[in-house]
């Protein structure tokens, strides 16, 4: 139970830390910064686990794990999952979510409604849908997945490796991205 409690507490504590970092500093690659913050917190997690008593001073003896190594591993797995599947995804959704952006655009419109033909111009707080496409293309270039060769986009070997993973999965599950 100690591992689970520390994982939950660690995740909750990361939120104000992230907030302070994002508010005090101009962070350009925010997702990478979040991952670095999380990685920096892992030794702290292990240290706190090692330095605190098995019952945390409040748990009944029945909840004290007889195999602390297993419990520590469990706590780290849960802590990692809550970060990568929770905090990082919430950030990704807020920063890159297309459907969420449509909802916010409707909420921010003058009379709380947007006609379908108005959606592209209103997208992204009025930046327009083209800005979203540019952001995706810039992202692919920045991540080294495509490069510009003579003004034309070309996939890199890194992209080829990613496609080798994604494409068969998409085909097997009969999904079509977009």
């Amino acid at each position, binding site marked *: 139970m100690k591992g689970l409690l520390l994982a939950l507490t660690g995740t909750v504590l990361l939120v104000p830390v992230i*907030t302070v970092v994002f508010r005090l500093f101009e962070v350009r690659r925010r997702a990478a910064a979040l991952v670095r913050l999380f990685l920096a917190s892992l030794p702290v997690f292990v240290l706190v686990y090692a330095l605190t008593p098995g019952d945390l001073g409040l748990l009944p003896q029945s909840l004290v794990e007889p195999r602390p190594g297993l419990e520590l591993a469990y706590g780290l797995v849960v802590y990692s999952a*809550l970060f990568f599947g929770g905090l990082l995804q919430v950030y990704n959704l807020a920063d*890159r979510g*297309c459907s969420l952006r449509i909802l916010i655009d409707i909420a921010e419109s003058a009379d709380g409604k*947007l006609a*379908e033909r108005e959606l592209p111009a209103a997208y992204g707080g009025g930046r327009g*849908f083209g800005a979203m496409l540019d952001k995706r293309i810039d992202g692919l270039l920045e991540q080294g997945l495509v490069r510009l060769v003579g003004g034309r986009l070309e996939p890199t070997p890194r992209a080829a490796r990613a496609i080798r993973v994604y494409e068969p999965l998409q085909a097997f599950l009969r999904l079509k991205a977009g």
Partner: protein
Amino acid sequence: MRADGLAVAIATAIVAVGLVLVAHALLFHFGRIHRRSRALAALFAAGLVLQLAGCRVLDVDWWRTLCGAVLVFCAFILYMPFYYVLAASFSVRMLLEIRDATTLTPAELRARYPGDRVLGARAAILAGAGYARRVGEAYVLTGKGLLLATSFRFMKRLWRLGPGG
């Protein structure tokens, strides 16, 4: 109560998640699923029930059973974003189009995504999921949609994320 309760709870969670993934693969490959996200969530819910039942049968105490259940939940929150990358990511779709086209300029790539069509389709999905509704030619938010939009607007301001999207 068994002494190896946590290990058993973890093992039941791993088995349950494994079965969920196999069921997902088979169902999506051979079946005709219309509401795929909902189907996937239902599969993970079934996995959770399986994990809980497994722990009860194997005489694991409730707290360690809960630890196993948390692992199933963790698998769910990790798998869903991966699934959405496969199913709905613009970046993945663009990457495939760049690969297939061999000679594509950024402007030509942009032209393949007409805003009215792409956003119209997304808005229709949002309406289908109950986040928005159509009133004449326009979309308005439902209570659920407004709550989500307001929460994320607050978060975007708090973390200084800019317009995003």
